[in-house]
């Protein structure tokens, strides 16, 4: 039976889940006390490994394994919490930061203890004013209470936390861009390798983890990695927050066990599709994921099942569109987003996303040309040769292939929607 790992407190204490008093009354900072008094850093790291926890920021990389990449004996080390949530359709990290900031702070302190980081930076998306203010307060309170700062709970472990407010640039969610931004520059991604674990913030060894990823850590330390791994599927253990939006009757953030089929998720949690319509298309994991149609509704929501249909759970954002929707306008919306957020370093991305956006805009406007559909695929192929999944990459980061995914996937599944918007031969001849 699944238990709620992340959202129990905010559901049971909707009025004050974010306060230190409620956090402590519900067992908060107990895991930290236990860890610094009874466990070595290696033991904390081992529990996270045993949990099989995978990153919730998009790529799904095993967290314990990532921590193991830090080079031996190199200090200072940094832990950076990625709270830049900006992928269209995603709104879970904001909720975790607003409604349970202490859970994240405790998770970050525990993780810093495990990896030997002396300074934690929480990079919080700038527009999330409430999240930022509550995080600042949580950090102040934790420091005052001796959960952070020098000599944490008398253990001799020192850790400093800084909440850093970003300023509106989606690309800064990409981990290397985030580090560049945190160093005080324009948020430009860097080539990998070197990976942040080896050369990250200020060229020091750095772990970057997502807000949701780290919010799981207090539960894992308290209950043991094995208990976490017992939930979900073998390759996607635990629960996960899914952000459900679009044409469902009850959109929202829902923490569910991995492995639940999409159909059930839409029916039970989403309470069905609005106006009794049926699902036409859905995005299974954020703006970067290839789209699916109703034939995939019985697919379980697990990373391995999504791999098998060449898409992904990505950031956990599920956007549903009903049968009254022509998909081209929403596709244009996403591509416009990526074009706007391209940092401009790589030609295929800077030029390619602009082209794609312009072509889609004229199709939506009813000014498309028949050749445009092939042209779209051609430009996509220049960005990500072969149009496969996981995508081939010609650019520094994966923003560019992300912009191509909605296009090639919908041209395969919903080509009729594109054709429907093209002017007919008569219309072209008549010049209307």
């Amino acid at each position: 039976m699944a238990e709620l790992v992340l959202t129990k407190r905010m559901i049971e204490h909707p009025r004050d889940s974010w306060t230190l008093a409620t956090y402590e009354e519900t067992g908060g900072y107990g895991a930290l006390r236990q860890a610094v008094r009874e466990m070595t850093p290696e033991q904390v790291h081992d529990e996270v490994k045993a949990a099989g926890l995978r990153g919730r920021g998009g790529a799904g990389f095993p967290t314990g394994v990532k921590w193991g990449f830090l080079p031996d004996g190199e200090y200072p080390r940094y832990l950076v919490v990625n709270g830049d949530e900006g992928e269209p359709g995603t709104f879970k990290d904001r909720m975790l930061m607003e409604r349970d900031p202490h859970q994240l702070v405790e998770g970050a302190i525990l993780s810093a203890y495990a990896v030997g980081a002396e300074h934690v930076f929480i990079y919080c998306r700038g527009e999330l004013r409430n999240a930022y203010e509550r995080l600042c307060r949580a950090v102040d309170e934790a420091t005052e209470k001796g959960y952070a700062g020098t000599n944490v709970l008398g253990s001799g472990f020192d850790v400093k936390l800084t909440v850093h407010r970003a300023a509106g640039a989606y690309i800064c969610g990409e981990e290397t861009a985030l580090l560049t931004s945190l160093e005080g520059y324009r948020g430009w991604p860097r080539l990998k390798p070197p990976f942040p674990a080896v050369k990250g913030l200020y060229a020091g060894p750095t772990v970057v983890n997502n807000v949701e990823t780290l919010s799981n850590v207090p539960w894992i330390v308290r209950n043991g990695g094995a208990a976490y791994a017992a939930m979900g599927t073998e390759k996607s253990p635990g629960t996960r927050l899914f952000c459900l939006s679009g044409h469902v009757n009850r959109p929202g953030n829902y923490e569910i066990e991995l492995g639940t089929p999409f159909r059930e998720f839409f029916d039970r949690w989403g309470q069905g599709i609005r106006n009794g319509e049926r699902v036409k298309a859905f995005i299974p994991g954020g703006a970067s994921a290839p789209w699916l149609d109703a034939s995939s509704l019985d697919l379980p929501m697990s990373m391995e099942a999504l791999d098998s249909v060449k898409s992904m759970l990505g950031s956990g954002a599920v956007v549903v569109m009903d049968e009254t929707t022509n998909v081209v306008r929403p596709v244009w919306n996403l591509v416009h987003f990526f074009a706007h957020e391209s940092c401009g370093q790589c030609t295929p991305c800077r030029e390619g996303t602009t082209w794609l956006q312009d072509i889609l805009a004229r199709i939506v406007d009813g000014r498309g040309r028949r050749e445009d559909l092939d042209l779209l695929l051609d430009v996509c192929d220049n960005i990500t040769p072969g149009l496969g999944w996981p995508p081939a990459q010609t650019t520094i980061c994966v923003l560019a292939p992300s912009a191509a995914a909605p296009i090639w996937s919908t041209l395969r599944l919903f080509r009729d929607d594109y054709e429907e918007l093209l002017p007919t031969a008569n219309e072209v001849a008549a010049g209307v």
Partner: protein
Amino acid sequence: MSGFFDGERLTAARAKVAEYPQPRSAILPLLHMVQGELGYVPRDAMREIADLIGITPAEVLGTGSFYTMFKFEKMGRHLVSVCGGISCMLMGSHDLYRRMLDHFGVGSLGTTDDGEFSFELVECAAACGGAPAVQVDYLFFENVGADDGVELLEDIRRLGLDTVYAERGSMTAPLSPGAEEALAAGPAPKTAHPRAEAEATD
């Protein structure tokens, strides 16, 4: 003439700079300090920031202008950011935006004549479950229907943002409406999926 950073502000700014292993990291926090008070970042303040962290004013502008939150010209008293992202668009946010602009007689990115509101259409605001989402001075209002936007802003003009936010803002909304109910129903039964089974036997 005294600058932006003096007295208490200077102390706070110096503390920000000291918070980071390298002073340049304080550039966004300092820009936020200025914008938080003035609603935009004037040139003189950029010069002061440059001095505080030991870089040139051109570097401050060059970095700051990469980030869409920073405004370099005077704005209205309140910044209204309507989400144009995919989920909000599916729920009609583009209509909502258009109606607000028409009602106040301004263009996109414009400011009303009385200086009360400036408008922008923004990328996904991380509130897609409450689409269409609107932020006023970065405070969230969710489920703002195309017909409700104008009324919301007129109420803010009349009663003040704090009052209206306390009544109707996102922080007063229940969390994931229905989450409790769905949870009470218990965990989803595991339905085996043919593809998953095939994988498991591979």
